[in-house]
């Protein structure tokens, strides 16, 4: 039992480490990929003349999702050019699924955009010239649309038309069936020195992404188990620093001084030492020059 807990802890730890590693190094990408597989569906609206209808693969999916018609949900996207009023621009459709914790979540989001009318195109060109905002809105509650208020987002029109066609990217932040906010913009970056050129192809490449909130990662058992270990560890640590490690800065100069003093003392001792050998032999009054012969004698 006692051995089991550390094992559990360590396996937890490994798992945690793996998770944190995963989130640290490619957290964002992996998140997106997952959603890509499951909940994200890129609706690519067809060329302008054709009316807004989802393309075939989408329809095929919708066929099998039709098995549970009650949970299907649709909500409109509306857009506005600059300060104009909002007008319908497309439809999102998705399935409502009851999640494991009881709440309802949205899956299999699909989007189909209406074709831009001639007036819309003109308006869009105007936006590009005036470097103005292209605005969109979504209902804030999907079950009782439009909810209390619309969720608005806007982007400079130039950011959408950086290539031939128009690129857009929706990140819809959800909480159950409530739309909290929508992040709308180009899929990549928005170049700053702006090139106000109208797109050659008046169609939208749409990418959509549903985002639900993250839960806070905290495993109390794990952290508590750690506490004991750690508390001990901290207490043990201080004596680890040896005497030398603590006081080397005093010991070295002291040693130097001592050595210096010793050599001095030696010299001093040796000075009369020429005499002190006097203990060895009688010749006492030999001058300093006599040293060399004395050494030689040895």
């Amino acid at each position, binding site marked *: 039992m006692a051995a089991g807990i550390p094992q559990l802890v360590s396996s937890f*730890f490994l798992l945690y480490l793996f998770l944190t590693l995963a*989130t*640290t190094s490619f957290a*964002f990408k992996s998140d997106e990929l997952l959603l890509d597989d499951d909940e994200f569906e890129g609706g690519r609206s067809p060329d302008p003349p054709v009316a807004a209808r989802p393309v075939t693969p989408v329809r095929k999916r919708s066929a099998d999702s039709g098995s549970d018609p009650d949970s299907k949900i649709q909500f409109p996207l509306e857009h506005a050019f600059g*300060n104009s009023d909002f007008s319908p621009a497309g439809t999102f459709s998705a399935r409502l699924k009851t999640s494991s914790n009881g709440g309802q979540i949205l899956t299999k989001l699909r989007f189909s955009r209406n074709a831009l009318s001639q007036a819309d195109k003109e308006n869009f060109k105007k936006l590009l010239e005036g*470097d103005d*905002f292209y*605005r969109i809105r979504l209902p*804030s*509650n999907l079950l009782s649309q439009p*909810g*209390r*208020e*619309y*969720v*608005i*987002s*806007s*982007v400079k029109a130039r*950011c959408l038309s950086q290539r031939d066609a128009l690129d857009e*990217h929706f990140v819809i*932040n959800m*909480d*159950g069936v*409530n*739309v*909290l*906010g929508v*992040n709308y*913009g*180009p*899929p*990549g*970056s*928005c170049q*700053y*020195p702006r090139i106000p050129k109208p797109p050659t192809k008046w169609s939208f490449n749409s990418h959509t992404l549903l985002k639900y*909130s*993250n*839960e*806070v*990662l*905290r495993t*109390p058992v794990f*952290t*508590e188990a*750690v*506490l004991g*270990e*750690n508390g001990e*560890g*901290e207490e043990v640590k201080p004596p680890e620093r040896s005497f030398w490690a603590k006081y080397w800065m005093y010991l070295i*100069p*002291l040693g130097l*001084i001592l050595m210096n*003093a010793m050599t001095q*003392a030696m010299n001093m001792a040796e*000075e009369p030492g020429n005499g002190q050998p006097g203990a060895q032999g009688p010749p006492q009054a030999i*001058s*300093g020059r006599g040293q060399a012969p004395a050494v030689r004698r040895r």
Partner: protein
Amino acid sequence: MTMAIRVFLLLFLVLSSSYTAFSLFEDQVGLMDWHQQYIGKVKHAVFHTQKAARKRVVVSTEENVVSSLDLRHGEIFWRHVLGPNDVIDQIDVALGKYVITLSSGGSILRAWNLPDGQMVWESTLLGSKASKPLLLIPPNLKIDKDNVMFVYGNGFVHAVSSIDGEVLWKKELASEGIDVQQLIYPDGSDTIYAVGLLGTSQFGAYLLDVRNGELLKYNSMVVPSGFSGDLSFVTDDTAVAMDSTGTSLVTVQFQDGLISFHQTHLSQLIQDFPGAAVISPSKIPGTFILRTENSVIFIEVINKGELKVVRELGHATAVSDGLSLPEGQQAFALVQHRDGKIFLTVKLGNDVWTSNLVEETIHLDNQRGTVHKVFINTYVRMDRSNGFRVLIVMEDHSLVLLQQGEIVWSREDGLASIVDVKAAELPVEKDGVSVAKVESNLFEWLKGHLLKLKGTLMIATADDVAAIQKMRLQSSGKSKMTRDRNGFRKLLIVLTRAGKLFALHTGDGRVVWSLLLNSLRKSETCQNPRGISLHQWQDPHHHALDQNPSVLIVGRCGHSLDSAGVLSIVDAYTGEERNHMGPIHSIAHIIPLSLTDSVEQRLHLLLDANRRAHLYPRTAEALGIFQRELGNIYWYSAEPDNGILRGHGVQKNCVLEVEDNFCFDTRDLWSIVFPSESEKIAATATRSLNEVVHTQAKVTADQEVMYKYTSKNLLFLATVSPKAVGPIGSVTPDESSLVVYVIDTVTGRILHRMTHHGSVGPVHAVFSENWVVYHYFNLRAHRYEMSVIEIYDQARAENKDVLKLVLGTHNLTSPITAYSRPEVFTKSQSYFFAHSLKTMAVTSTAKGITSKQVLLGTIGDQVLALDKRFVDPRRTVNPTQAEKEEGIIPLTDSLPIIPQSYVTHALKVEGIRGIVTVPTKLESTTLVFAYGVDLFFTRLAPSRTYDSLTEDFSYALLLITIVALVVAIFVTWVWSEKKELQEKWR
């Protein structure tokens, strides 16, 4: 030679003993910090002068402080802050030794020991229905040897024992539908009256037995004209009120169960009656006061409820309550205010207007405004006559004691209610005023340092120590009025709730100048003015250096957002008002822009309630600058009631009847709608505008680089479940959750959203650099928690390739636009924390190199500094060697509270409401100012003062060491010469 060794050893010892100190020592308290204690605007005052060795006055204030002040000097003997939810209703003194406070709408009764302020007893008086709280302490009423006081609160009359606070009996009156206005105890009887109104037109009086609360008699009478407002009691059996139309006065008399009333039309009393009048509460026997728009009228009640006007005085008049003199007479004080002078008259209540006991004229500082309240006290003079001292409360909330025509003391108690703080630089030192003046005497300087040396070597005597301490406190000209090299000396400009502006010197906390803002004073156009915020208006650093810095004060004329605004610009050096505007459009939000004009006046955008933006300063130049940046200005507004966060941008000039070039229309750019059934906005936090980030990258132990996402446009927002808005414990963990967001305020992108299940507010948060630290309560763990979120930029993560840097294909220099989709990732971690908090702040330094500390204003009214390293999301259980080197602390469950890290050491900042940090020029140091009822200022060095020597560094020691070394060199040199010579002569 042994000499030389000894000298060396001695020197070595001396050097090794001069260690550097890293934490605060006892004798360092007060060197760079100061602490000031205040009490707030006085509401009630009770003098306690008779038979007391120390004369004192007990006061209760609007900051809910009950305090005993020294009448001689105005110092605080003791003080208790009851907190914002415990409003003091009444105070009095019982038994001559207890201070009785009635608070929280008449539901808490406490007794404090008068000499030392210890609480003696506390009683909770429960009831059914909120009512006007009343406290009555009959001076000599005893029931079974128990001194009794009567309290009316929450619809009950309570008889409470003065000795131990025991409730002897209680009697409900609110159930009868009466709104009791006064408790009256006729002296010597054993009954009390509870007198009040039933509905709007019935007067009722209950007669209760003081022994058991039994209802003895009940009388009532319908007054056909009705009442408006409260009853005002003139004597024990006479009350006066306005009738329901507000045009006549009703005098009600009740004697021995008989109620009679008398109605007098105001126009009969007063010629050219202005129309609106209020009876102002005053306790002068036989007389009451009627306040009209521009005069104060004293009206006497003569027999049978007839009224007589006795005197009419100007508007700026304050009157004290009546005071019984030993001879059985009544006196009251009357204070008038004209042209910066105060006219004090003390009159006898009985023959009111013929003679004055005291007539004094006192010159008072012009910046104190008018007199709001007067309290009078008497004492026996040398010649056995009556002397009077008067305590007056001024418009700026200051407290002044007058005696013998002089100001005995004054207290700046407006500083207890600071609304906003800004720091301003001091003037640059001019030539001619040199530092040499301060340290003129070289001998003195040397002596000082020798003393310090003595202190260091621990051979100083007690006198020396005292001298050192004194020297330290006055040292280094810290209270000079010029800028210093390290930027420690500054002015703190504070705005108080009274509408007064103070400049406090950071050196010693003294008031350099003060200004009662005319624009924030009550006037005809602006009825309820109050200051909202202070902003740096002009702060010359690069050019226009000949101009003084100035601050912008923004105020509002009422409590609602759509009331008219007032603006005022004040010179920070001199405290003179340069300019004021108002009343102008309403002010809902103030945005200081990052733009300045040619004289370094900062551009401000003021948003009104109609969502129009107004540009200030109103100059053509400012307009030009603004027009250029028009498209790049975004802001957000949170609507906590609707649960909507909106982003806005500027559009074009407004269409108004009068053309206004400085007015702009705005539009909504984005919105985030929080589901009303599950989320309610609880707190927001943004980065401070002037924060400097030194490095954008963080190098981790394994040589990886993480780029901080340092966008200035980030907003941290926390929502709680609507059910969980109440206090902790009102919901179960399953019902409540806390959701935190990190939102880009330009585009409305939700960069991060995270749910803490089972957690509730109150949420406190700080946002700095790329991290947020927030504090909340975890219901599941029954503990407070602090969490951290760090935001890193993924988009620039590829830049760590050296080859790319060399080839120049990196995107480091590409312009950053908020419209790009940010690729961020976050790291977060939660820790338990033992304290609950009142406020939170973060240190800021000049260049942002120094590591940060989170400053926590704890529930115990102290400031705790918590190193950011403790709230690091990268802490792991077993950090590797490399991580340890990086400074990562092993993960623990909860955050440590290290006693030494209390910034306020042994002091308390009572009722702490805010903490402000100001960077100094010295990178390692930051100035911290904490305010509440008290003020506290100190200097902090979160990473220690690595860039300067400590202030008490002993230069003398250094000098002596050098000299000693030189001497030693010479001595040894001479010795060696001698020795060589000797050797040569051998």
